[in-house]
């Protein structure tokens, strides 16, 4: 099936198998390997991307379901030489250890602030519910979201 979509500001058109998962389209067809596959069941959030402005898990969507959509992956967050405030905050606050969940965590964290620029700790934690991190115990991730909310990743 033919699909066309916009990813990180670039337009793409491909003929894909109907069963091709969106995550495999991103990773294998386009070489966007930032989003990761952690569970293949929507439960861990390592594959989280932004689709039409909403954070979604790309491991349980077919590529054809994204036809016509506008996507942002972790690769699209930084603009030339300048990190997104959430990336900067994850760096400053030690929000990543092994880094495998990090692209999904950052995309979800961005959405938390998109919806509520001044969340409480509990609101941040609930916003992160759909993303599993096995390394950090989440505390430094929570700190990163707080720092990004406070401004410029400080």
């Amino acid at each position, binding site marked *: 099936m033919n699909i066309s979509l916009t990813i990180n500001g670039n337009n793409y058109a491909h003929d894909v198998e109907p069963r091709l998962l969106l995550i495999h389209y991103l990773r294998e067809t386009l070489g966007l390997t930032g989003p990761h596959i952690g569970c293949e069941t929507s439960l861990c959030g390592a594959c989280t991307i932004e689709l039409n402005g909403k954070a979604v898990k790309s491991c349980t969507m077919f590529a054809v379901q994204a036809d016509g959509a506008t996507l942002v992956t972790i690769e699209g967050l930084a603009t030339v030489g300048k990190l997104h405030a959430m990336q900067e905050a994850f760096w400053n606050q*030690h929000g*990543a*250890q092994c880094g495998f969940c990090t692209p999904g965590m950052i995309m979800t964290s961005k959405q938390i602030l998109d919806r509520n620029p001044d969340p409480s700790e*509990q609101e941040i934690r609930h916003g992160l519910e759909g993303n*599993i991190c096995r390394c950090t115990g989440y505390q430094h991730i929570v700190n990163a979201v707080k720092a990004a909310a406070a401004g410029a990743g400080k």
Partner: protein
Amino acid sequence: MATTITKTDTLVGKRIRRREDPRLITGTATYVDDIKMPGMYYAAILRSPHAAAKIRSIDTSKAAALKGVAAVFTGKDTEKAGAVPCGASLPGLRVPHHHLLATDRVYMVGHPVAVVVAADRYIARDGADLIEVDYEPEQAVADPEKALEPGAHAVHPQWADNIAFTFHQEGGDVAKAFAEADVIVKQRIVSQRLVPNAMETRGVVAEWRAAERAMTLYTSTQAPHLVRSLVAQILGIEENRFRVVAPEVGGGFGSKIQTYAEEILMAYVSMKIHKPVKWIESRRENFLCTIHGRGHVDYYEIAAQRDGTILGIKLKIIQDLGAYFTLLTPAIPTLSVLMMPGLYRTPNVSADIVGAFTNCAPTDAYRGAGRPEATHGIERMVDMLAAELQMDPAEIRLKNFVRNEEFPFPTATGLVYDSGDYSAPLKKVMEMAGYDKLRAEQVEARKQGKLMGIGLSTYGEICAFGPSPATPAGGWESATVKIEPSGKVTVLTGISPHGQGEETTFAQIAGDELGVDIDDVLVSHGDTSLVQYGIGTFGSRSTAVGGTALYFALQELKTKIKKFGAMMLESEDITFSGGRCTDNKTGKSVSLKEIAGASYRAMKLPPNTEPGMVATYFWEPPNFTFPFGAHLVVTDVDRDTGAVSIRRYVAVDDCGNILNPLIVDGQVHGGVAQGIGQALWEQAVYDDSGQLVTGEFTDYTMPRAHMMPWIESGHTVTPTPVNPLGVKGVGEAGTIGASPAVVNSVVDALSPLGVRHLDMPLTPEKLWKVISTGRNA
């Protein structure tokens, strides 16, 4: 908090953000599944749906005929290709032959049966689905105690009793201690099976180049050199033509120390098809086939005087080994025995282990590896003893701790504790939490019928593995430091970090020793073609052993730098500091960059000195290190639902000197999360037929952000004399301290109902039943 460092500052001790992070936060790091090679094939593995069955026949014809399938392999093909290795040895150990692919029987759900190799991963999976296997299922045994009962199904038909080994160790005179005791407390304590669940599953890319007789294996591992040595030996590949790369590795927690069947299989497949091949483990496979942790049933007895003095400890461990061994399987419970006295002085201990085969995934090292079980046991027993004697749990601990003047302290199990001040973190954690106030609050809460608990644990751990005689594949570590002609510094380390941050901490060490900016130091690891041999990252050893190897390599290099400096300044009286060699008489100086350049141009050389600026050091540690600490947990248990709410979590850890407090905090937080996970939620549940019931994230409860408490973290600092950095290790501390602190807190909360012990995980369902019936679950 971005810290700007000039070279006049010291780097060690500062909260420096990590050098490895830019690639992680931009999604540009390269994990195994991100590697793509021209002409690469994909493998899918067909696995057994039965825990125990005979294989009558395997028909691969439909799979082989599928368009896009390149090859199908079964146990008949790989039968002579070797077995999955176990590095542990114990007297009388029965080692089952661990075939790469099942031949005539399967021993656990997920047992690999066939490999399908295809042009893409979808077709490989389709092919696996087309294989027809005729199984003759047998009654499995999935519980270690049931496995030891007479008449139980024999996991391996040749060993009817399911006993892989027995092990006994004792110290002092435990019979006398128990005979003279005023009080003896006994308890069966379970440390349940857990699934490590690194967020990156395992994965392998193998590329065989026949004309060069050369293998390259990219694998998600904690020990790349060990994988190289073992797979080279198993498949008869020349080790000097075998390159193993641990690219970015997405967590391990002990589950990636082992050399697995799939690493050997993919190398084998690539040699057969003469093409690169990739296999990526699914999460379901990770649950079923990657090692599990814990799996203990412990029978404890503790003997004491009426004043709380512990006289002796007896322990019998039933270790659930699973169906066969991975690298360290039978050795893990022996670590529990080593640490069974905890921080306490008692010289009288007796321990027995019975290693039981079950039709389950193998158990092996999972964060803490034997020490969480030991700490959970002794810390529960000490709390029960305190309750029996109506003593405060803090008081009984303080009474029995090894005293400061007794270090180095020889333990009842034959270890020598390096250094410690065991009461310091306990006193600090009580002060941070406001212990007396909390107890007063608890009295009031109980009057109102509220279930509020205060739990302590004081843990010790054995880290920095280890002296080589105590470690299966060697326990030393190595480092190479190169100063390039431009003055930039390259560090090659034999450890293989996968989240622990040594690209940063090692750059801090090198930066300080050489007086260069942290940005001028690059730390590389995980590639056997780049790094001199190394042991790897596990057992909280990386900084304590690998960092020390680096320290000594730097000292050798500094000696050489000073020789060149002396030559260039034509002086015998030289100081090297701040990245410059200075003539102490004239004040003239040369920079490291000038010295490095001169060492490579080699127009002139100091006496008896070779050109170049490279040093390699292999460091053998004289002892383990023994970090310690105290955790305090305040819980509230909901009477109506059984739900546990952690109101306060206070951790005081003593890991010796701290190189980077930001990274140490991260290690503590992550460790605590895994310990709380075990205490409250996580459990690998096999049903009687050997099916893993909690085999996906839907059923296996992982700690998530909204479930975790805020962790208040503090430290005391007792440097180790074992290494010149004074560091002890911190990777496993949180996990070891957490589970007994949480369980002690919940038991304390429920003690007004007559509860004296509860086994993990403390799910709402379990606690609701206890609260409803007033009995122990």
